């Protein structure tokens, strides 16, 4: 033992110096120069998300314009200004707004139906074990299946009309939303579940009053993904499939103008699709987020 301890003793063992104690009063907050100071105008502008994003969009537009002018081939890439002009003409003639309305109407029908079914599936999955198995099997089977691949089948089943498009829209929305909602429900903490049951909540009121708000961040993500999937599917379906029941949508507008080599109008069609996407993401979803999950501190 002594042999083992010997080398340890040689290591210097410093001890801290003894210092006098002291207590003092602190200065009141008002007497200190700057505790809080407003930001400068530039700093405040730089904090505006929409401003930064608009700047990015403007830069892209400038790059596009420069490139298209240098290329000088309106059949391949029309200039930004030509696209804007075509867009404006389309709006003035009422062609784009009407096609847009057709598309959006279909989209909302398919989206709403998809959401309803997703809610039904996930509620079943939360209440019964078999419902859970059903949802997991169906999502893993159908989620990877592109909606557009179902279109030929839909045409045979539902004919050349809105119904076929709504069918593929539902398919594209349902699984993405169900998957996110379900994983959101499952990640609700045990404590919150116990709190809900402590109040005597069960069955459907437990789902609506505890699970849905608690899983809202995931549900919102699901809604966004579902929306994007639906939009893509719709445009693709219209492109493949053309007019449905006598009136076309934006996809058809793009297809039609391509056939007539009206390339600026093709770009204007694409531009409209992008604008609607930006509008929904930045105005609708952003505000829903602000009023819910951010306000509740569930997301930063």
């Amino acid at each position, binding site marked *: 033992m002594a042999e083992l301890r010997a080398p340890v003793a040689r290591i210097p063992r410093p001890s801290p110096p003894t210092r006098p104690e002291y207590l003092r009063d602190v200065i009141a907050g008002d007497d200190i120069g700057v505790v809080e100071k407003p930001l400068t105008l530039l700093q405040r502008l730089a904090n505006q998300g929409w401003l930064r994003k608009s700047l990015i969009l403007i830069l892209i537009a400038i790059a596009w314009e420069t490139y298209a002018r240098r290329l000088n081939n309106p059949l391949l890439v029309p200039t930004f200004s030509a696209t804007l002009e075509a867009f404006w003409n389309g709006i003035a003639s009422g062609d784009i707004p009407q096609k847009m309305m057709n598309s959006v109407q279909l989209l909302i029908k398919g989206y709403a139906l998809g959401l309803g079914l997703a809610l039904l599936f996930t509620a079943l999955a939360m209440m019964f074990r078999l419902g859970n198995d059903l949802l997991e099997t169906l999502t893993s089977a159908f989620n990877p299946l592109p909606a557009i691949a179902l279109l030929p089948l839909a045409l045979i089943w539902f004919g050349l009309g809105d119904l076929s498009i709504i069918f593929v829209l539902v398919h594209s929305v349902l699984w993405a939303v169900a998957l996110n909602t379900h994983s959101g429900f499952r990640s609700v903490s045990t*404590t919150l579940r116990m709190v809900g*049951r402590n109040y005597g909540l069960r069955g459907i009121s437990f789902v609506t009053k505890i699970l849905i708000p608690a899983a809202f961040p995931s549900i919102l993500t699901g809604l966004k993904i579902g929306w994007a999937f639906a939009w893509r599917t719709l445009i693709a379906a219209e492109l493949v499939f053309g007019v449905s029941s006598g009136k076309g949508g934006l996809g058809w507008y793009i297809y039609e103008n391509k056939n007539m080599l009206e390339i600026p109008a093709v770009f204007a069609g694409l531009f409209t699709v992008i604008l609607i996407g930006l509008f929904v993401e930045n105005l609708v979803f952003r505000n829903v987020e602000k009023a819910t999950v951010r306000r509740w501190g569930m997301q930063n």
Partner: protein
Amino acid sequence: MRPPSTPTADEGRAPLLQVSGVTLQYKTEQHLVTATYRVSFDVFRADRFVVLGPSGCGKSTLLKAVGGYMAPTEGNMRLKGVPVRGPGPDRMFVFQEFDQLLPWKTVKQNVMFALQSSGKMRGRGAEAQAMRYIEKVNLVKFAHSYPHTLSGGMKQRVAIARAMAMEPDVLLMDEPFAALDALTRRKMQEELLQLWEETRFTVLFVTHSIPEAVLIGNRILLMSPHPGQVKGELNSDGSDPVDPTTGRKLSDRIHDVLFADRIEEQEALHHG
């Protein structure tokens, strides 16, 4: 078997909560675990009944069973003579975790929601009741704040206000102050005692801290681990008095009882 108690003048004498011979088991992926073995105790009206034991003595599981979240494999639990079946608003839970408040509701809405969704009160009545208890825990200024803007101690106060506003038969507290810092914990313990002085609620309080048990409880149930069994019940007046027969402080006596096995084990090791 004891006959179910009837609301008579004698009600104060009959136990409010009777736990008799309760064995609790739960399954993990690989094992069937016995959390408590034949635990019996009685809680009377206005008791501050503390369940004290080291981790692994099944005290939290026991509280969950009283809360109705799991059924005993043996024995039974009766609240006012009625067997406990499933969770219900007559036994309000205060958990240890800060996430027990609903994040999508403000402080006031959280308290009101409990009253409304259990069907106890509606509209104005619920609002008045909520504000009365929010005032009791000194959070009137924060009635319209969302939980994520509050500190841990404030969140626990809301949880206590929410549970007390329901005026349950018994409050179930599962280490409600364990996640707080020492200073806040101390303050919350005093506030809880103050609230008890005002309203004389009945509380079943689970903790692993001997000082907390001595301070909070008027009756302390001691449990041993693996599986949880009752080692005894002691009385406390909060001042940690010296026992005249043994000449030792209450907290030291509790320490001796709870850790007797471990001391014997260590002695056995030393002698062996």
